[in-house]
């Protein structure tokens, strides 16, 4: 369950409702930013969700969209340190330790959570770029990856066998790309629009890692000079296939499988799914189940 700070919802409550109605499924927060709340609030929300279904809950953290954070007056100067600190503090809180510490983002004074049972809650990091990937490889239980295809392949290699990994088990890799079941021209336009949004938001370091960056850089420039609508119409099939997943259900499932061969343990379907989201989800899920 993702958090969109522009909507008037509580991501933890939505995740709770999801866990209630689908208890056999893994439900997680994917993702929230440790910069949006006091770290102790995230700790206890995660612990509460873990009590609902301890074998299935995962907490996803990410820095967050820089522009979204800026609208709330939050600036991020050291994202790697912010995430690293968040992971460390959360694990210490859940271990029931008495904590006194002060960092750029966290201040605790003789703090001890009263709800702890010592259970380990898996932390997934939603990260992009070489520095954050290295951090995730070192400390995260799982990693949520998004970005262009060549970049994904390199990113998976970086995180899977990180030499400085602090946790015995390998990280679980989740790939999350905008996915659209395209039946009509309208669906195709939606897919290209989703790809354009992703491309606009992709950092230069990711494009450099991807190596096939010229077209994407050109689209970013188009967006800056001529606006989103024109850039969206300029998304080529190559860019679409590189930054998003689209096509009929069979093609979508085929791409999912190829991501599995690259090293992904899980693939997230969606959003935006298509212009008929429920029908798209049913069709792709049905195809996946039967294949």
């Amino acid at each position, binding site marked *: 369950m993702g958090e969109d700070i522009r909507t008037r919802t509580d991501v933890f409550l939505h995740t709770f409702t999801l866990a209630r109605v689908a208890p056999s499924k893994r439900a997680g927060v994917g993702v929230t930013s440790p910069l949006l*709340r006091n770290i102790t609030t995230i700790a206890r929300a995660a612990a509460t969700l873990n009590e609902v279904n301890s074998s299935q809950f995962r907490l996803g953290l990410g820095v967050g969209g820089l522009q979204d954070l800026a609208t709330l007056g939050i600036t991020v100067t050291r994202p790697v340190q912010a995430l690293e600190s968040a992971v460390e503090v959360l694990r210490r809180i859940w271990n029931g330790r008495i904590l006194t510490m002060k960092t750029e983002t*966290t201040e605790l004074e003789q703090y001890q959570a009263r709800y702890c049972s010592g259970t380990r809650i898996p932390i997934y990091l939603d990260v992009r770029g070489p520095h954050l990937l290295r951090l995730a490889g070192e400390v995260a239980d799982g990693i949520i990856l998004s970005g262009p295809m060549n970049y994904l392949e390199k990113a998976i290699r970086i995180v899977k066998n990180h030499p400085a990994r602090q946790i015995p088990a390998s990280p679980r890799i989740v790939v999350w790309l905008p996915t659209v079941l395209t039946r009509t021209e309208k669906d195709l336009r939606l897919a290209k629009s989703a790809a354009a949004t992703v491309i606009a938001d992709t950092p230069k370091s990711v494009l450099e890692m991807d190596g096939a960056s010229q077209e994407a850089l050109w689209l970013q420039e188009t967006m800056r000079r001529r606006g989103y609508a024109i850039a969206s119409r300029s998304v080529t099939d190559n860019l679409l296939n590189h930054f998003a997943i689209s096509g009929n259900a069979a093609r979508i499932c085929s791409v999912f499988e190829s991501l599995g061969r690259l090293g992904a343990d899980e693939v997230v379907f969606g959003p935006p799914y298509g212009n008929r989201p429920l029908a798209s989800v049913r069709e792709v899920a049905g195809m996946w189940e039967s294949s």
Partner: protein
Amino acid sequence: MMFGISVNANDSLQSIVEKARIGEAYGLDYVWVSDSPVQLYAPIIAAAVAASTRRIRVGLGLMSTLLHTPQQIANSLLTLCVMYGNRFDVCIGVGDRQQLCRVGLDINNARDLPSKLVEARSIIASNLQAARIRTRIWLGAQGPRMLRIARDFDGILLNYSNIQMIRWAIRQGNLKADSKFKIGISAPSYVHSTPQPEILELAKVAAGTVALGTSSSVLRMMGLVDEVRRLRELAEGRPSLEEISSQVPTEILSNFAITANEEELCLYVRELKRVGVTHAVFGYPQTHSQHTVKELAKMLRSAS
């Protein structure tokens, strides 16, 4: 008069839900889910309670506007109402200063708290209005500065139990309960037929914790400055008061907690009604077990 319990103190989610169901079954009107940096996340508890009950009203709070932004509180309330029906109230306030200090939030650094709370109320109310949801926004208050803004809210929850203090607060805030405005108290409680010493100790700890978080102006009104200062010295460096519960003065227990047998409870409820209180919330350790919740609910039936 309406009665409720306050949950989410040293308890598991499942246990809280069971106690809420008992409260509903035995006729209580409210379950208030307290929010503290060291306890489980209140909005989820509130959702779990609502999902497992049908009639009882669920209160969220006190939600500190220093710990949560007004928009985050509004988001939680909106999500709850949309998903579980219009059965929720919210109480906002500054919060317990000691607990907030532990998570890096210093009340002394916060400017113009009363105005900020009124503004928070406005943000929450406008969000609810946009979603066409009507619910009660309470103010959690103690001292004169907060009492002055109480009428900007739909109700006030005072966190002391002493009748004189309650009477003082009502006069100070020029408060009168009517169809639009409610006056409530929320206090640590132990109402019993036969007192169990270990639960009484918990009541002392709970009362002491509230006292330590009380502003100096209110403590002066109560004549408890020295007692709380001594308690603060004893509590220095300890994460909780449990180790020193026997040293919590009786005056703190009697001013901040409701401890009574059935007869005393009857008299107390009568006094509350007489001074104009319309809601009484019985907090931890009244929710120590299903038995203590049942006992309270049965006694309140007789008292009413």
